[in-house]
């Protein structure tokens, strides 16, 4: 099968989630792997060693527009006769991929966890009903697939892709365009791509107390998340929410601090490799899913944990 990977870049580097999408394509047995980047300034060796043999460059539109990106991908997918187009299921990927699928008249499988070849098409595993069930779906080519971050091993392969320039696509005149963008300094790692997440809930009592979670996260190279109760209280931004109506995350380690473990929260984090819970209530449901638990006051346990880690790292 012939596959096309949509490339996303961040801070001058190809996103890991993109490399994972390429990895998914290779693992599926796609023998021809090409990539497309819409925009300026892709690092020349960006896809070196990612098993991609050809890289198409499409000039950017004046300002980011999902319809423009989708048109670029759909046109190329059609012209090149690709069986599958892969996107990483990031914020951008999730908005462009469905539009590209319609443009290509292709079947769509979003946020897939596993893939297997199935005749001329694929079988894909997806999470349903907030992680309460898995479903296996089948679909024929042509296809558009988005892969959930951290579910596929990043691609590896030899050499650098040959680069080919493409003209701007025939994008619709009436389209959505970006008019303002504000990013905080440093650009936090996306929760869905983080290896370590330290989440706080209502048990943190006060937004200022999240400082102790920030400290622990920083020590471990992780990021801070939150339960809906913490978000609804206005302590944390909505983009930090983990759960059925927030983000679904699968980090190496998930710390749930002052979080009771409601079913809608579990929906977002129960696929974490290791769960550590800190809660003062020994009966809290979170302990039923946690690999390691500490019963106690977060305000005491978390600073002590940070101090101990610092000590260990120092010595």
């Amino acid at each position, binding site marked *: 099968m012939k596959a096309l990977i949509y490339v996303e870049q961040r801070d001058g580097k190809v996103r890991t989630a993109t490399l994972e999408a390429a990895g998914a394509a290779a693992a599926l047995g796609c023998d021809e792997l090409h990539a497309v980047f819409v925009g300026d300034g892709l690092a020349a060796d960006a896809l070196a060693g990612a098993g991609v043999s050809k890289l198409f460059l499409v000039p950017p539109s004046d300002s980011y527009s999902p319809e423009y990106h989708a048109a670029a991908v759909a046109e190329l997918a059609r012209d090149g006769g690709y069986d599958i187009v892969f996107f990483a299921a990031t914020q951008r990927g999730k908005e462009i991929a469905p539009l590209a699928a319609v443009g290509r008249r292709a079947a769509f499988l979003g946020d897939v966890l596993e893939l297997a070849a199935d005749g001329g098409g694929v079988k894909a595993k997806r999470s349903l009903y907030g992680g309460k069930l898995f479903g296996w779906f089948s679909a024929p080519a042509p296809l558009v697939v988005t892969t959930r971050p951290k579910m596929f091993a990043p691609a590896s392969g030899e050499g650098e892709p040959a680069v080919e320039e493409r003209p701007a696509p025939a994008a619709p005149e009436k389209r959505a365009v970006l008019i303002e963008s504000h990013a905080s300094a440093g650009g936090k790692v996306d929760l869905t791509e983080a290896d370590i997440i330290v989440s706080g809930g209502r048990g943190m009592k006060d937004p200022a107390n999240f400082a102790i979670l920030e400290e622990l996260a920083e020590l471990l190279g992780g990021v801070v998340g939150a339960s809906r109760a913490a978000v609804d209280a206005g302590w944390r931004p909505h983009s930090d929410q983990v759960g059925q109506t927030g983000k679904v995350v699968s980090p190496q*380690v998930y710390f749930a601090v002052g979080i009771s473990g409601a079913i809608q929260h579990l929906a977002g984090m129960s696929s974490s490799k290791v769960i550590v819970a800190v809660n003062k209530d020994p009966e809290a449901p979170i302990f039923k899913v946690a690999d390691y638990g500490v019963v106690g006051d977060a305000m005491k346990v978390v600073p002590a944990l940070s101090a101990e880690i610092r000590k260990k790292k120092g010595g």
Partner: protein
Amino acid sequence: MKILVLVKRVPDTAASIRITGEGASIAQDVEWVMSPYDEMAVEEAVRIKERAGAEVVAVSLAPEGAVSHIRLALEMGADRAVHLVDSQPDRDAWSTAKALAEVVKEEAPDLVLAGRTAVDMDQSFVAPAVAALLGLPFLSSAVKLDLEDGKAVVRRETEGGHEVLEAPLPCVVTAQKGINEPRYPSLKSKIKAKKKKVDTRPAPEFEALVKLETLAYPPQRQAGRILGEGVEAVPELVRVLSEEVKII
């Protein structure tokens, strides 16, 4: 101004979901509700109506008799509803989008509101597909929506920041958590809703591209080890994180 809101019926997020029969369907005796993001979409439409005046039409493709979520939309303030009665056994997201797009085309609204995702299939496909099928601009995951000079201006959150996008009307906008707090209908609005019209008609059928083959339960997580109480447990936790989990 006419606003169409796409609303889907899903199992309550607290419901336990059971697989029945040959493995590709779920027990239907769960509590069904309107998908949470669709409630936000209805709320946003009704607020625009209250602010600036608009006709709000709720549209749902749902099985025969599945009307409680449609009624809720009317009770929240939608003026009328279209119920596309679904009897296609292999209905997928594509055929859903095509059926809904026909209604959007026929109604020719100034704005289509939908949820960021439906919390059952969690695919975020139907709303952008409706937009693309009709050539309407698509603005996703709005935490704020303003309508001005024939344009929709949407703010949305990105990791550690936010961005603003705009598109000319008519367009499709999906609601993300944070856009509003959906209201609980008052008794008065419930009574008023009884008189509102639901146009019930068969949903057009379209070829399905994606087929659900099997359903399975995820492996159950086992309760692990309580390492201890309070700060006394910290040295053991650090040992575990360093020797077993290997992140320190």
